[in-house]
C-alpha cells in the first residue's frame, strides 16, 4: 500500500476483507476474549446453580426435624454464588467494553493515518461529510459489533449447549429436538445474516449521504443564506433523511422476519410432544417431563438475544467494508522513504510535462517545458483556468505528472524523499486555509518549533503584526473555522507570514495578494522581494508590480506555455500577454509626487 504518510506501529491489520480486518483487530486483545468466555460461562453456571440451591433449601425445610442452620447456610451460599456471578458478569462486560473501545480507537487511528497519507487526487474525489460519517459513526459501529454484538452471541451460545447436554441424559432420544433446534437455528441465522448484509449496508450508505448533505449545507451556509435558499436546503436534507429512513425501515423489516423465534415455538411444541409421548410409552417419568421442558426454556435466551445481536454484527461488517473502501483506495503517491533527500539548491525543470486531473479529461497541462535556475524568480501568468496553479502543484508533488518529468536539482521529484522535498518547498495557497487555532499556531504551522520572536518577525514582514495586535488577545486570538473571523486580506497576510517563517528553498506564491490593497501590498512586496532573494520563487499574480521583478515570465494558455521572456519582450512579441495586460495603461490626470505609503502599518496616508 503506497501512502504519503505512515506511522510506526508494532501491529498490522489484515485488510483483505471486513471480517478478517475486524478479527485481526480483536485478536490483539486475546486476554479479554478469555475474560468474555469465562464471564459467559460463569453467568450461565450462576443461573444453573440457583435451582439446585433452592432444591437443597426445600430439602432442609421438609427434613424432620427442619434444619434451620442448613437453611441459613444455603441462603449464604445463594448470596455468595450470585455475587460471584455478578463479578464474573462484570468482568465479561468490562472485557468486552475494553475490546470494543480499543477497536474503535485503533480502527479510527488506522483510518485517520491512512486518510492523511492519501494523495490529493484521492481527496479531491471525497466529500468531507461522508468521510466524517465513516471515521466517526462507522468506526463506532465496529465497536458495537463487538459489544454488544459478539458479546451477546458468545454469551448466549453457552445456553444453546444445556439442552444438548441435559436432554440425552434424561433419555437418549431426547437429544432429537434440541439437535433439530440447533441445526435449524444455524441455517436460519445464516439466512438472516445474508438478508441483513445488503440492508445494513444500505443504512450505512444512506447515513453517510445524509451526513454529507448536512455538512455541505452547513459549510456553504453563507451562500445558502445569501441566496435565501434555506427552504431548498431543508428539503434536500429532508430527502437525505427520508432515504435513510427508508433504509432503516428496510432493515427493520428484515429483522422482523427473524425465523429462529418461530423455530423456537416449533421446538417447544415438539419437545412437549416428544416428552409426553415418551412418558406415554412409559420411558420416562413425570419429573423427567418437567425437567426436560424446563431445560428447553434455556433456548429462549440465545434466540431472542441474537435477534438484536446479529443486526449489530451485520452493521459492523457493513461499516468495516466502508472503512476498508477508503483505506484500500489506490493512491498514487508514496512517501518514497530513503529517496533523495539532499539539501535543496532550487533548480527546477519541467520536461514535456503533461497532466490531467481525471482520466479522459482535457489535460490541465500539456507538454510544458520550463527551466528555472536556483534563486530565480519566475512569474506565471495566464488567464483564469490556464493551469497556473496546477503547474506549481507538480513541483511539490501534490499531484504527479502523467507524462514527462519535473526535476528539482536535476533529480526527478518522484525520486526525492517526499518529506525532504515538501519540507523545502513552501506554498501560499490561492485558497487560504487557516486552522481554527490561535493566530500564532497558524503562523508557525510549517515550523512548530519557532519562537514567539520569530513568529512576530514573520508577521511584521507580512504586514500582519499591526492588525494582530489590534485584537484583544493578540497572537492568541483563535480564528474561526477556515479563518472566517478574519477579513480576506488578513487571512492572506497570515498565510504569507506562514510561508515566510517556513524559510523554504523554493517559494510558491499563488495569487497571494489578491485580497490586499495596493498600499499594503507595497509594504509586503518589499518583504517578499527580500524573501525571494537567494531562493527560487514562483509567482502567480495578475499584478504587474510583482510580475516586473521576475527574472522570467511564463505565459500559459490552456495548459500550454505560449511565451517566455521579460515583460518588455513579451509586450512586444506575445499577443496573449498583451491581451491580458494591455489596457491598464491609461494615465491618471494627477500624479502624487511623493510615495503613497508613509506609515509602516499599511494605512493610507
Amino acid at each position, binding site marked *: 500500500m503506497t501512502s504519503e504518510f505512515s506511522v510506526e506501529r508494532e501491529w498490522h491489520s489484515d485488510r483483505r476483507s471486513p471480517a478478517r480486518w475486524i478479527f485481526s483487530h480483536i485478536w490483539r486483545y486475546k486476554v479479554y476474549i478469555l475474560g468474555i468466555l469465562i464471564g459467559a460461562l460463569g453467568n450461565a453456571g450462576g443461573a444453573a446453580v440457583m435451582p439446585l440451591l433452592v432444591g437443597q433449601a426445600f430439602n432442609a*425445610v421438609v427434613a424432620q426435624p427442619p434444619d434451620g442452620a442448613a437453611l441459613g447456610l*444455603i441462603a449464604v451460599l445463594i448470596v455468595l454464588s450470585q455475587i460471584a456471578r455478578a463479578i464474573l*458478569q462484570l468482568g465479561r462486560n468490562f472485557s468486552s467494553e475494553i475490546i470494543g473501545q480499543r477497536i474503535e480507537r485503533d480502527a479510527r487511528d488506522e483510518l485517520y493515518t491512512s486518510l492523511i497519507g492519501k494523495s490529493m487526487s484521492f481527496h479531491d474525489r471525497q466529500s468531507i461529510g461522508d468521510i466524517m460519517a465513516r471515521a466517526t459513526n462507522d468506526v463506532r459501529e465496529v465497536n458495537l459489533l463487538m459489544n454488544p454484538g459478539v458479546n451477546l452471541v458468545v454469551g448466549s451460545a453457552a445456553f444453546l449447549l444445556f439442552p444438548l447436554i441435559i436432554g440425552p441424559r434424561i433419555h437418549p432420544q431426547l437429544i432429537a429436538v434440541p439437535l433439530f433446534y440447533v441445526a435449524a437455528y444455524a441455517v436460519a441465522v445464516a439466512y438472516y445474516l445474508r438478508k441483513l448484509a445488503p440492508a445494513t449496508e444500505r443504512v450505512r450508505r444512506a447515513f453517510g449521504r445524509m451526513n454529507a448533505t448536512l455538512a*455541505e*449545507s452547513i459549510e456553504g451556509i453563507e451562500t445558502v443564506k445569501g441566496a435565501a435558499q434555506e427552504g431548498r436546503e431543508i428539503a434536500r436534507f429532508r430527502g437525505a433523511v427520508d432515504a435513510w429512513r427508508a433504509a432503516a425501515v428496510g432493515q427493520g423489516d428484515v429483522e422482523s422476519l427473524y425465523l429462529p423465534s418461530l423455530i423456537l415455538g416449533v421446538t417447544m411444541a415438539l419437545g412437549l410432544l416428544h416428552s409426553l409421548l415418551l412418558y406415554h410409552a412409559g420411558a420416562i417419568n413425570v419429573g423427567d417431563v418437567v425437567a426436560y421442558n424446563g431445560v428447553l426454556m434455556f433456548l429462549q435466551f440465545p434466540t431472542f438475544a441474537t435477534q438484536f445481536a446479529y443486526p449489530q454484527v451485520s452493521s459492523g461488517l457493513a461499516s468495516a467494508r466502508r472503512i476498508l473502501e477508503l483505506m484500500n483506495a489506490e493512491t498514487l503517491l508514496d512517501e518514497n522513504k530513503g529517496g533523495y533527500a539532499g539539501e535543496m539548491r532550487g533548480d527546477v525543470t519541467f520536461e514535456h510535462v503533461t497532466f490531467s486531473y481525471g482520466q479522459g479529461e482535457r489535460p490541465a497541462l500539456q507538454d510544458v517545458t520550463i527551466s528555472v535556475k536556483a534563486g530565480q524568480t519566475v512569474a506565471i501568468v495566464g488567464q483564469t483556468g490556464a493551469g497556473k496553479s496546477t503547474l506549481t502543484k507538480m513541483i511539490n508533488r501534490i499531484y504527479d505528472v502523467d507524462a514527462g518529468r519535473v526535476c528539482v536539482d536535476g533529480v526527478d521529484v518522484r525520486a526525492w524523499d517526499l518529506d525532504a522535498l515538501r519540507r523545502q518547498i513552501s506554498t501560499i495557497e490561492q485558497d487560504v486555509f487557516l486552522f481554527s487555532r490561535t493566530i500564532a499556531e497558524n503562523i508557525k504551522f510549517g515550523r512548530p518549533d519557532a519562537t514567539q520572536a520569530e513568529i512576530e518577525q514573520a508577521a511584521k514582514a507580512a504586514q500582519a503584526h499591526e492588525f494582530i495586535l489590534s485584537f484583544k488577545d493578540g497572537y492568541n486570538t483563535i480564528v474561526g473555522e477556515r479563518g472566517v473571523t478574519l477579513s480576506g486580506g488578513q487571512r492572506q497576510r497570515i498565510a504569507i507570514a506562514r510561508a515566510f517563517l517556513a524559510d523554504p528553498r523554493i517559494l510558491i506564491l499563488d495569487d497571494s495578494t489578491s485580497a490586499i490593497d495596493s498600499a499594503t501590498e507595497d509594504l509586503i512586496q518589499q518583504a517578499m522581494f527580500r524573501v525571494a532573494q537567494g531562493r527560487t520563487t514562483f509567482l502567480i499574480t495578475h499584478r504587474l508590480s510583482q510580475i516586473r521583478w521576475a527574472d522570467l515570465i511564463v505565459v500559459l494558455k490552456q495548459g500550454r506555455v505560449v511565451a517566455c521572456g521579460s515583460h518588455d519582450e513579451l509586450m512586444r512579441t506575445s499577443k496573449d500577454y498583451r491581451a491580458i495586460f494591455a489596457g491598464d495603461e491609461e494615465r491618471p490626470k494627477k500624479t502624487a509626487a511623493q510615495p503613497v505609503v508613509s506609515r509602516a502599518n499599511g494605512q493610507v496616508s
Partner: protein
Amino acid sequence: MFMGLAAEKYDRQYSDRQLLRRMATYFAPYRGRLIRLTLIILAITAIGLVSPLLIARGIDLVGAQPSVGAIVALCVGLLALSVINWACNLMRRRMTARLIADVIGQMRNDAFRATIHHDMAFFDEFQSGKVIARITNDTQELSQVTVLISDLISQFTILIVLVGVLFTISWPLTLALLVMAPVVVFFGWAFRRVARMVTRSGFRVIAEVNSAIQEAVAGIRVAKTFRQEQAIYDRFRQINRRSYEVNLRRGFVLSNVFPTLNAMAGLGTAVMTYVGGLAAIGGTVSVGAWYLFIISLEQFWFPMTNIASFWSQIQGGLSACERIFALIDAESSVKQIEDPRSKVQKGDAQSSTPNLRLRGEIEFRSVSFRYNEQQQVLRDFSLRIAPGESVALVGHTGAGKSSIIKLITRFYEFQGGQILIDGRDIRTFDLVEYRRQLGLVSQSPFLFNDTVMNNIRYARPDLSDDMVEAVARRIGDGEWVAALPNGLLTQVGERGQHLSMGQRQLVALARVLAQRPPIFILDEATASVDPFTEKQIQAALNLILADSTSILIAHRLSTVKSVDRIIVLDRGRIIEEGDHATLMARGGHYASLYDTYFRHQSADFNAEMYQKLKA
C-alpha cells in the same frame, strides 16, 4: 474529571420533566401507532405468560393418563400460540422500526431547520463538525429510548401479573417481597446521575472527534504542503485517546448496572429463601407455597431489574435530547421584530412581505457594530445609497468593507443605530424574502458539489438549461465555459475544488447574474481573475449596474472607476466620498490610493521600484 470537554455556550440544562415532555411531543403524532404497538406488546406478553401454563397443563395431563390425541391437540395448541406470537413479534419489530425512523427523522429535520436559521455569528463561533455530530449522531440515541420505553410496557405488565400470581401463592411472602423491591429500584435510580454525566461527556467527545477529522480533511492540502502530517496526526491521537478514555468510562459505569442489580436480586432471593423457609418451618406459610414462591422469584426479578435499570439506561437518550434541544433553542443574536406597519394592515390576508420587490434604497443611521469584544468594527457609521446607485467601497484590508455588507445581508446583528432598506427598518423584514432581493458574491465563493449549470441556477431553480447558458454567455461570450473540462456540465467538486479560483468566482458571478436582484453586492468578486477576463466581466456588469443598486468592493481600482460614488473607508469610518473624477481632483486619500495602484501597473514605476528593492 472530563478535562476540556466543556459544554458549548448554547448548551443548557433542562429538567428531566422538560426533556420527557418535549420528547413526548415527537411521539405524539404517532399516538395511534403507539396504541397499536402497545396492544401488540400486551398480546405478546400475554402469550408469554400463557405458554408456560399450557405446558404446565400438559404436565398435569400426564398424571391423568391422556390419550395420544389429547397430547397432540395440546402440542398443536402450543404451536399455534407460538406462531401467533411470532407474527405479533414481526409486527412489533416492523412498527418499532418505523416509529424509531420517523421520530429520529423528524428530530433531525427539526434540528437542521433550526440550525440553518441560526445567524452567521453562530457558525463563526461553533465548529460545524460538532454541530453536525449533534444532528446526525446524537439523534441516533432516540432509537434506544424507543426500545426502552416499549420494553418498559411489557415488563410492567409481566410484573403486575406475576405479583398477582405470587399473591395467590402466598400473600405474606409477597408483601415481604414488595417491601424489598423498592430498594432495588432505588439503586437503579441512584445510578442515573452518573449515567447522565458519562453519557453526556460521551457525546461531547464524539463531537470533538468529528470536528478534528473534519478540520484535518479540510486542511489536508496545507498539511501536505508544509509536511505537517505528523503534527496533525499527533493532535488527532490525543483527541482519539481521550475519546477512548471517556467512552471506556461510560461503558464501565453503564455495565455496572445489571450485575449490581442481579446481585441485589440474588440477595433478595436469599432473604426470601431464609425468611420464608423459617416461616414455613414455623408453619406460618405452607411448605408447598413457599417452594413455589421461591421458584417463581426468578421470573419476578427479571422484569424488576429491567424496570429498575430504566432510569440509568434512558439517561443516554436524555443527554442526547438535551443537546439537540439546546441546539434548536440556541438564541439567535439576529432578531427580527414585528413590522409596526404590518400590524396596522392586519386586515390584509398576509403581511407586507410576500412578492416584495425592493427599490434598493439603503441607509445606515449611526450604526455601531462589532463581532465580539475583540474589536469595534463600525462606530457611528452613516451612509445612504439611493435606489439604482452604484457605490464602491475601498480602503485598506480590515477596514470593515465586508462587514458593512454583512450587515446589509443581515448576517450579523448590529449593536446601535438603524439600518433602513427602502425606508423600512431592516429588522422588520422576513429574512428569506428580503435576501431573495440581494445578489451576493462573497469574497470566498462557495460552490455546491454539483455541475456548473446547477450552481449557476442555485438561487433560481426554475431557470431552464438554455437560460443558464445565456447567462453564462453574458460574460466574455462564454469563453470561460468553453475552457471548462466539460462545459456547463463540469462537476465542480466539494466546495468547487475542481475549478480554478477564477473559475469559481465566475460561477458565483453568473449565479447572481441569473438571479437579477434589485440589489447587487460584489465583494472582491474579481480578485482572482486575470485583467483580461475582468474586463469581460466588467462589460457584463455594466449592463446590470446601470439599473440596480449595487455595492462593489475591489482592491483593483480599475474596476471601481466607473461607479457613481466611491466611498473610502478607514477603520470603519468614511473618510472620503465622491465619484472617481472628483476624488482624483481632490488629491486626497483616494487619489493617492489610485496612484499607488496605477503606478503598480506602470512600467516606469516598476522599473524604479525594482531598482529600489535591489539596492
